[in-house]
């Protein structure tokens, strides 16, 4: 019980740290730092998505950048066509572009959901290191696909000149944009919490721990994992859509294996299967990148050391070090 309370407290501190940082930066007139906190929230959201697959379903996806990138492209392409006044697709129905964030999020969710259904359906027939490799392979395929489509800038990427709007809000304002990112992050954590505690979540955890046992009680692990993989991809895709709006730029590198690795790092650093952990992971990552990256290009060496330390000495990530082992169910 005491442990449980410690975890709630740590979660609360983590949840409040982001808006506190954003507000402080805003009050000091440092809009760069407001955007930096938005960046943490967005990357954390990508991690929250992966955490559902990795932390609760035991699926070590090394291809979540595919969904991050698809989300970014989905939002970017809608904005691009809105700017152009051309339809996104004209067959079987005509869909016009829209410079609206909710439309971009919805497009990201639909596209990533469908991609995850196809990728997951194939990848989940394997397990262990094969699963890691096959998800990586799919992400690399999408990477090269993005490079080869000249309409959307190919390898150069796609520049978005204006941030898409949100009904009733001024999304170009940095603090407002942060609030949107933060709201989605918290919503995703809430959704993950509900799913993890549901009957489906129980079956998913069961599948990650002991597939043989799950099958023996009559629950097929495959469809359970596939559904979780799709939801996971959809959450990460929304992060991608937000990232496109944050930086005003979409490029194939968002789908590259390095991005997949970074999303994995957020989750592992923070603590696999812990709700708020991806925020810690993303925050540490951005802090190191900003603080040490400003001094030397070798900041990733320090990141490597931190990761090594966490994996060797705090098996539950930073979250595990702060609050002990995850609560059992």
């Amino acid at each position, binding site marked *: 019980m005491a442990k449980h309370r410690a975890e709630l407290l740590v979660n609360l501190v983590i949840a409040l740290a982001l808006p506190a940082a954003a507000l402080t930066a805003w009050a000091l007139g440092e809009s760069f730092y407001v955007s930096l906190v938005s960046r943490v929230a967005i990357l954390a959201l990508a991690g929250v998505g992966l955490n559902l697959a990795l932390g609760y379903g035991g699926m070590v996806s090394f291809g979540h950048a595919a969904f991050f990138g698809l989300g970014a492209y989905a939002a970017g392409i809608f904005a691009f066509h809105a700017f152009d006044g051309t339809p996104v697709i004209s067959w079987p129905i005509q869909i016009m572009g829209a410079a609206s964030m909710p439309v971009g999020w919805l497009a990201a969710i639909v596209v990533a959901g469908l991609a995850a259904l196809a990728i997951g359906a194939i990848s989940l027939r394997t397990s262990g290191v094969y699963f890691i490799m096959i998800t990586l392979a799919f992400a690399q395929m999408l990477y090269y696909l993005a490079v080869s489509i000249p309409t959307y800038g190919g390898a150069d990427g796609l520049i978005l000149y204006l941030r898409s709007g949100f009904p009733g809000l001024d999304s170009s304002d940095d603090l407002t944009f942060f609030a949107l990112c933060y709201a989605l992050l918290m919503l995703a954590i809430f959704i993950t919490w509900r*799913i993890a505690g549901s009957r489906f979540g*129980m079956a998913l955890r*069961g599948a990650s721990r002991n597939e*043989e046992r799950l099958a*023996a*009680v009559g629950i097929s692990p495959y469809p359970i994992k596939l559904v979780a993989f799709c939801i996971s991809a959809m959450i990460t895709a929304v992060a991608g859509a937000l990232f496109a709006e944050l930086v005003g730029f979409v490029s194939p590198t968002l789908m590259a294996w390095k991005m997949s690795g970074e999303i994995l790092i957020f989750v592992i650093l923070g603590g696999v299967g812990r709700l708020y952990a991806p925020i810690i992971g993303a925050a540490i990552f951005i802090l190191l990148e900003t603080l040490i990256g400003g001094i030397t290009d070798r900041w990733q060496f320090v990141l490597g050391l931190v990761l090594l330390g966490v994996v060797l000495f705090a098996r539950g990530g930073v979250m595990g070090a702060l609050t002990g082992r995850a609560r059992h169910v």
Partner: protein
Amino acid sequence: MSDALLSLRGLNKTFGALKATDDVSLDVASDEIHVIIGPNGAGKSTLIAQVAGALKPDSGSVLLSDEDVTRLGVPARARRGLARTFQVSSLIANFSALANVSLAVQSHQGSSFRLWRSASRDSRLREPAQEALSRVGMAATRCDIPVDELSHGERRQVELAVALALQPRLMLLDEPMAGLGGQDCINMTAVLKRLRGECAILLVEHDMDAVFALADRISVLVYGRVIASGTPQEIRASREVQEAYLGN
């Protein structure tokens, strides 16, 4: 057509040159406890795995209420009323006993795609799970700790409770007494005895006191073959069985 709940017809399974199941045919009636005995390596676990669907036989068929289930996988057979326990405990380690049993309950209720409502506060899950646990004699105070912190004997009880929670027509129990101490053995035997009539049981067991206390029929498996099958009295009297197995 037969009135058997489970019929195995000419099952064969080889591992390389080893014939682990050799033309096995046997029936289990819907209210009987059918015990399989035989020396280590005789192919008992292999046979159970083929009945459960975890292993595919090379030839032969498995019928459940006259339905050919030979080609169905483990989950599909479990949904048709086949529940099994494993020779080596196989529970979900960081789940509590209650959570382990709840999984079986939700499977039985066909509700594993509910993504929103809390499972841990759901009395439609908790109550049947709790009941299954108390039927196997699990202390209520031990139901909420992770199963990897339970004793070996308790884990065996939980395994049985998981199988019970499926409200199966046939239970496949692979050495449920393995590694249990004297008193735990007696308790487990009593629990199984109380299940008589509720569902059929295909039981693999080494403990001869338990075997003769429980069995309606006994089949003796040696080198993958059924060398004798009959009532406990017949098996006790059989010279062949004495030589092959009991007479040591």
